[in-house]
């Protein structure tokens, strides 16, 4: 099972390259020229992103490094317990919307503490897949646009986040 997944994953990039370049060759197109031209465009948009990316990294780090997150964790605990969500998952649930790498580290620690095949460990893994880094995605995606008002993106993102958390815990209860 794992091997099959691995294969599809491994094939993704080389497969795309092979297919597209072969198609170009068949059409006798100047693929080298097209490729480098596209690379220039890609690098240009990377450069325009930088100020926004820096701002969002800074904001998220300020929030997590200052201890504000820990406070929120403690404040949210009673509420989460009320919903039947184990205490061990609190920091993962709260960190996940702001930091992908941070929450991955928390996931590793959680699995080490409770075991990867325990109820909490499985819930933590499913939660990491079904819940997204909402604030990070919104910040980075809109950084390349001129949008100031993001309308319903945040509420939809957060409601689905809550649904993902509840869904993860619930499915571990029954499966």
């Amino acid at each position, binding site marked *: 099972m794992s091997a099959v*997944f691995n294969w599809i994953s491994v094939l993704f990039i080389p497969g795309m390259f092979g297919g597209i370049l072969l198609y170009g060759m068949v059409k006798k197109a100047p693929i080298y020229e097209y490729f480098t031209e596209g690379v220039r465009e890609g690098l240009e948009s990377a450069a325009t992103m930088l100020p926004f990316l820096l701002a969002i990294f800074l904001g998220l780090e300020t929030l997590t490094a200052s201890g504000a997150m820990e406070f929120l964790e403690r404040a949210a605990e009673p509420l989460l317990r009320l919903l039947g969500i184990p205490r061990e998952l609190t920091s993962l649930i709260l960190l996940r919307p702001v930091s992908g790498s941070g929450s991955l580290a928390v996931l590793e620690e959680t699995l080490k503490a409770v075991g990867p095949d325990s109820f909490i460990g499985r819930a933590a893994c499913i939660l990491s897949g079904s819940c997204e880094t909402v604030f990070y995605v919104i910040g980075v995606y809109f950084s390349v646009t001129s949008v100031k008002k993001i309308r*319903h993106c945040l509420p939809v993102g957060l409601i689905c986040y809550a649904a993902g958390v509840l869904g993860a815990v619930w499915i571990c209860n029954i499966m």
Partner: protein
Amino acid sequence: MNYIWAVMMLLGIGFSICSGTLSELGQSMMESCEEAIWFLIGMAGVMGMWSGLMNVAKKTGLIQSMTGMFRPLTRRLFPQVNDQETISAMVMSFAANLMGAGNSATVFSLKAMELLDRENGGRPEASNAMCMFLVLNMYMVQLIPMTVLKVRQDAGSASPESIVVPAMIVEAATMVLAVVLCRLLEKRGRGNRL
């Protein structure tokens, strides 16, 4: 965005003052800026690579024929988007997400957002299509959650893959919820323009 950022910064700084960790905070703030640059440098290479490859696909006409396949689906989700390049960027981003190729997915998503912004005429209000794309991309089902599988394996799990199916069920449910909510909320916005 303005408020979200302000809240993050001020809440963090306020907390730091209360708990007396200002010196560590200053340090972390500088480090995060450095990290942003490193992240972008790593990302820029991948961005260049995909952007180059997609340019080949675009100029040779491959994208044109490919997007035709996904047209029935994208027409329902993004009724206002007709540009082929935009659609192909969106489809590629979904595909990369499905495959669990995180960095590549981000690259295509950013390209798609850029193109959607152009279609939106650079307006300060996000278009329906932008919101739908962003939300759908966030809650896209992942066929191969490589990172989580790796973490489980490292933690000594007896069956790392045992979470794949339940995770997919939950993800599919949140994805449907995301699309439905998005549809409901977009009607509230003034004018159903792009």
